[in-house]
């Protein structure tokens, strides 16, 4: 290969790397190469500490690898190097034991300070309980303006449709693919928000990189964590602990709002919750169309992950399409959805998660979709069956 050709090849290689890195959505969703600074004191401290350790490593690396590479060139046999005979030196050995030790002590001081800050969840302005489920989050406002507000937050529909196997949807065109939810967690800015993190089933981990911490959600445990976000904005995170099949599909979205906006949101959310509760508990008889529409939405967030959007199931998750359960007597169908399966631990009980209306709607949906035709179920049927 001529020198000119080599030059061309190198230029081509570098420009293709450049094109590759600039063409894609490097947007705000990801900071390109390094840890993100985030938006809280904790996350900025983590970033600073990360940079300190990184530079220490780089300097040590340059010195050690430098010596090694110099030696590889200077002390090679082909250059006529003759091996020296030294094979120990207490002075040197003590030195390179003590120096790293001192560096480590220097590192431990800021690390300790940061750790104490992170673990100090005392005197919060408000508290939110985070409960993880396979595979969604539940948020409950324990006090403050939104006290009593409680909702599930799961992967948004656009991502959920696109992530189906060979969905045919170009996931690069889906906005915030796998980073978006149906109901965001809303917090006020400038307030110390304490999170009480627990789990309903397996261990999950609640992580928003911009806040600078992650904390495991463990059944029976209530882990404390806290954050104080100064700027309004939308912050995205992920479940960080393997929690089963859809571990990769339970994002976290936190919207920080100025206090005024937060109060407005809280009031609206409470009104919405009251209306939904009233509708669910009324003895109204719903039309099939109403139930099917509501049921489709509930199915998408609570059932489709396992039983699939087409009702055909996958792997250990049985199909609903044409199944004996979904086309047989309604009582059995209601029982398994409300109380869970007695034989298959993978089928959770939804009695506590969903209200009677949602349950009736989703059961109706399952009994009248994909060719099933087994009649509708009303909220009062569910109520009677409980």
């Amino acid at each position, binding site marked *: 290969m001529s020198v000119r050709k080599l030059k061309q090849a190198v230029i081509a290689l570098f420009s293709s790397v450049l094109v590759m890195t600039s063409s894609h959505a490097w947007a705000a969703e990801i900071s390109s190469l390094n840890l993100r600074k985030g938006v809280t004191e904790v996350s900025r401290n983590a970033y600073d500490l990360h940079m300190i350790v990184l530079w220490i490593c780089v300097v040590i690396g340059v010195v050690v690898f430098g010596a090694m590479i110099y030696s590889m060139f200077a002390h090679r046999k082909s250059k006529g190097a003759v091996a020296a005979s030294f094979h120990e030196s207490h002075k040197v050995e003590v030195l390179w034991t003590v120096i790293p030790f001192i560096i480590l002590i220097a590192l431990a001081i800021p690390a300790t300070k940061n750790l104490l800050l992170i673990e100090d*969840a005392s005197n919060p302005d408000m508290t939110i309980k985070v409960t993880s489920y396979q595979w969604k989050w539940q948020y409950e406002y324990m006090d403050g303006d939104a006290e009593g507000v409680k909702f599930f937050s799961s992967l948004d529909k656009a991502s959920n449709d696109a992530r189906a196997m060979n969905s045919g949807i170009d996931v690069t065109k889906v906005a915030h693919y796998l980073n978006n939810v149906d109901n965001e967690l809303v917090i006020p800015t400038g307030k110390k928000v304490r999170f009480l993190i627990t789990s309903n089933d397996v261990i999950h981990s609640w992580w928003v990189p911009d806040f600078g911490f992650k904390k495991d959600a463990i059944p029976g445990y209530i882990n404390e964590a806290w954050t104080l976000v100064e700027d309004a904005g939308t912050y995205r995170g992920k479940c960080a602990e393997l929690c089963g099949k859809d571990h990769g599909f339970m994002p976290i979205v936190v919207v920080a709002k100025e206090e005024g906006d937060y109060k407005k949101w809280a009031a609206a959310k409470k009104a919405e919750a009251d209306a939904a509760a009233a509708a669910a508990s009324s003895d109204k008889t719903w039309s099939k169309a109403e139930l099917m529409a509501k049921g489709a939405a509930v199915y998408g967030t609570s059932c489709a992950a396992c039983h699939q959007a087409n009702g055909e199931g996958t792997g250990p998750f049985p199909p609903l399409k044409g199944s004996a359960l979904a086309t047989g007597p309604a009582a059995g169908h209601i029982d398994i959805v409300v109380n869970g399966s007695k034989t298959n631990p993978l089928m959770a009980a939804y*009695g506590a998660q969903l209200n009677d209306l949602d349950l009736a709607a989703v059961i109706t949906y399952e009994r009248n979709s994909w060719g099933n035709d087994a009649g509708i179920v009303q909220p009062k049927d569910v109520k009677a069956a409980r």
Partner: protein
Amino acid sequence: MNEDQQQKNKRLAGKLSLSAVAMVVFAIVALPALYNLICNITGLDGRTGRIEKEQALATRPDKTRVIKIEFDANVNGDLPWEFKALTRRIEVHPGEVATVSYYAKNLSNRTIVGQAVPYVTPIKVAKYFNKTECFCFSQQKFGPGEDKEMPLRFIVDPDLPKDVNTITLSYTFFDTKQSGVEEDSAKAENATPQ
């Protein structure tokens, strides 16, 4: 290899095998016990203390401090129960006996035995938080549709670290998957978290 050597090898192998067996026993018997011990001392797993006699602490209430206690309730997994704290929060003086209530209802049409597991945060307060009466001391059996108000009586140790002013006490009800209650058997005594 001569006889001597073989004997020596077998003896050493025997000793090493014994230590491997000892390590299995260590893992199954000693590690969980050690873990429980450490938990009891440090409150590592957020378990709260249980005392039979409250007088010891009640003799010296600290009226100068006010501690906010928050109550939380969870139901684990598929357990079809409603479970909530009837009091969301109260304020107490350390050394003062307080009583609150939780409410639970079996929403299903079968009898279910549940076990409540306590957790207290911040975890360093666990050993200062003492309960004299709690539904978590034993398994709870609920018939179909049965509901119950369950009292919880506790006292906060006056030696509670000075920087703590809020304590969150949480219970999670688990399905024991059993049909009957274990009454004060040795197992319940040892295995039940308190």
